[in-house]
């Protein structure tokens, strides 16, 4: 087994961003803007050290961070670049402690890569872990929430470097207030939330997720033959169906994009048809009305040629895809976890059925 990377340079960042499309479950947006930000940052600072929580000052602050709002806005309104610095200063001042490491809020889409840019600019390491182990849409859908750890004090910054610091009653209120602020700020902003000491973070953090995402990207990049064989050799993967997108339907409800995609099987899967229900992320995969996979398992439409993940906004008629499912990060499969991110939370009257993946 190859030793995991100890720092993130251009090669690791490229692999990480591909891994973040695969492990996103269709959410979190296209990582490209985050990747280019990180590449630009490390081109000036050199690689960012990748550390385990045990390697840093136990009383120092770890700062989970990322963008918040619409990734489709951020592809147009790209960040200033100094948002990470002003967020960090605001929370250091509020908590009276220095931040000693940055962390990705989620390991999917743009947020699995973007915080690396902030770590580089701050001269800080990045923690090999995150708070979702995939992408989810809301602030309370983070593992510290299961441990009763509050997401606040939270700081939001925009490209004008205006900073707003939140002290809220609970994490759900924070989600509500932040979502409205982001709308006023033009659809996307940057956030630092769930600030924790390294010791506090040890409980909730899903470990090793950057290393996993990088190994996914690397496996696909270096695949000698079929990238899906290589992908399946580094992470447990269930391929539900190979086919093509024959219908996509979208609607906006309650501020979130809901919709469904129909995938008709080709080749050995000819004659079968799957429906994927999504709300920003892919949440349920149905065949003949029966759920084959549900959230929090990670359901990703993978490009059948490149094995890269396709975000829900980019699902289009005619795409040729493999419906891939990766087992949910362990914290989400507990009763408490399912109460926060299980299929019923998203309005589906089905129970979570763990997918059988081979690795």
């Amino acid at each position, binding site marked *: 087994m190859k030793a995991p990377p100890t720092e993130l340079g251009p090669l690791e960042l490229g692999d990480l961003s591909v891994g973040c499309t695969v492990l996103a479950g269709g959410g979190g947006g296209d990582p490209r803007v985050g990747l280019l930000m990180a590449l*630009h940052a490390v081109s000036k600072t050199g690689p960012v050290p990748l550390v385990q929580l045990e390697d840093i000052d136990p009383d120092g602050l770890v700062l989970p961070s990322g963008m918040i709002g619409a990734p489709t806005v951020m*592809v*147009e*309104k*790209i960040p200033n*670049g*100094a948002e990470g610095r002003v967020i960090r200063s605001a929370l250091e001042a509020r908590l009276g402690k220095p931040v000693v490491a940055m962390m990705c809020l989620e390991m999917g889409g743009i947020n699995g890569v973007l915080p690396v840019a902030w770590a580089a600019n701050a001269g800080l390491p990045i923690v090999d872990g995150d708070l979702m182990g995939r992408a989810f849409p809301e602030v309370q859908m983070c593992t510290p929430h299961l441990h009763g750890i509050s997401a606040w004090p939270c700081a939001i910054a925009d490209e004008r470097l205006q900073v707003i610091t939140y002290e809220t009653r609970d994490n759900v209120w924070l989600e509500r207030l932040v979502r409205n602020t982001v709308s006023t700020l033009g659809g996307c902003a940057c956030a630092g939330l769930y600030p924790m000491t390294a010791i506090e973070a040890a409980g909730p953090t899903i470990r090793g997720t950057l290393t996993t995402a990088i190994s996914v990207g690397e496996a696909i990049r270096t695949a000698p033959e079929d990238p899906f064989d290589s992908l399946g050799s580094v992470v447990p993967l269930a391929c539900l169906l190979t086919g093509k997108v024959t219908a996509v339907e979208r609607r906006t409800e309650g501020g979130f994009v809901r919709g469904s995609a129909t995938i008709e099987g080709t080749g050995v899967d000819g004659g079968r048809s799957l429906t994927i229900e999504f709300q*920003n992320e892919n949440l349920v995969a149905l065949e003949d009305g029966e759920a084959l996979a549900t959230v929090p398992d990670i359901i990703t439409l993978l490009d059948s040629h490149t094995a890269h993940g396709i975000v829900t906004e980019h699902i289009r008629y005619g795409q040729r895809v493999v419906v891939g499912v990766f087992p949910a990060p362990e914290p989400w499969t507990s009763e408490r976890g399912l109460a926060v991110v299980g299929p019923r939370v998203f309005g589906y009257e089905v129970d979570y059925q763990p997918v059988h993946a081979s690795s």
Partner: protein
Amino acid sequence: MKIEDTLRIGIDVGGTNTDAVVIDSNDNIIAKTKTPTTSDIQSGISTALGSVLSGLTESVDRITHVMLGTTHATNAILERRDLNKIISIRVAGPASHAIPPLFDWPDELRHEVLVGEVIVDGGSELNGQELAEFDREHLSRFLAQIDEEVDAVAITGVFSPVVPDHELAAKDVVNEVLGDLPVSLSHGIGALGLLERENACALNAALLSVAKRIVDGLTEALKSKGLSAQAYIAQNDGTLMGLDYALKYPVLTIGSGPSNSMRGAAFLTGVSDALVVDVGGTSTDIGVMHRGYPRESSSPVDIGGVRTNFRMPDLVSIALGGGSVVRYCGQEFQIGPESVGFRLTDEALVFGGSTSTLTDCAVAGGRADIGDPSHLEKTPQNLEDALVKSDRLLADAIDTVKVSRSEVPLVAVGGGSFLVPDRLPGVSSVLRPEHYEVANAIGAAIASVSGQVDRVYKLSDRSREEALQEASMAARGEAIAAGADPDSIEVVELEEVPMAYLTEPVVRVRAKCAGSLVAREAL
């Protein structure tokens, strides 16, 4: 002269051959030619024109329109040849400093093209509000200190497809400080996605001189043949633009070849919804024609190593062609991926060569009548059995491309199209049109004119239907501006994508309208 007496010429300048066709007002092909492509634009077009006109008994005065599809702009970028020195201005501060302009360009292309780049404050928000006041002073200062020669300027503003005002203001500053330089503005070129639009806009500015040469070359070639026809140039979506437009937006000519080929193929058969299979010597391209236009790929397109957000036809390519080498190993035929390519007439068995190719198999199976079949009598295996495998490869590729479950017609074109069997699963009929070898030039000759927009709409102050209507009308306006006949304009594409993770409903709408050329009557 009456409309029914008018003629049109379609010209396609490809990598190897330049094809030209003359089409009458009833869309009959009355002359065609294939000549080798030359590196000099004007002489290549002149030669093709001369050749196709020599086969024409009608008076050249009857030719009212000439349509050109060309790879010149593509090749200029790929070969880093004849490109302008440019400045790229981004009007987006305080946003976007995290990624500098043209950051992902290959170093040698950036070195070849870029004199300077800057980010100044300005631009718009998603909802049309000002992001920041446009910093005229900053831009002025930046331009004043440029001491190298500059041929053209590219300007890209954040959300300029929503509000172009600050791009226009920046253009005024450029003209004040640097004089009357050509300027490309991004809102006329690309869709949402600041970096991809900025890339396309900068490539466009770099191509402006190439565009001038194409347009001048075409104009001169027409003049030398005594033609006074209106001229048009084909763009990446298979529609046409007038020469004025081509001079401003040359980057849009990139990738017109496959679109023209598919549209030509569909035209020759008269079907608007079909699979188009183009079998060459080495590979086969399979695309889908939907309502008369190629279905577009959803993945981003790199041009010369630069990411843009242009849409190109969605093609599946497999290594299967008339020259594909066929081997018999382990009780099974192995097809390709190697091909004898243009050496087919030396190396294939039916031409007395020693390599088994798919062409030999087709001759053995009675699908083609090429060369001398008696050469095949000596082969130990029954070559026609390899066709079972090649048919399966084709059928599998077709199945991955095809979207509807119902059977659709298939148009087979290209030099190796005899390999396509008459029956394929999911295919209602296989059409083999005459003139298939000049499908590209025909596609150019019959192309329509289009306009498209990509905008975002808040649904708090308008209904979804109103947003779609507004986008369609804007696209229609663009089509008219590009030269379409208002009475013939149809909406050919309308796509709405709600934007995720926002509190209020916002949709992004892409609309494309196309219509026939205005003034088909004589000049």
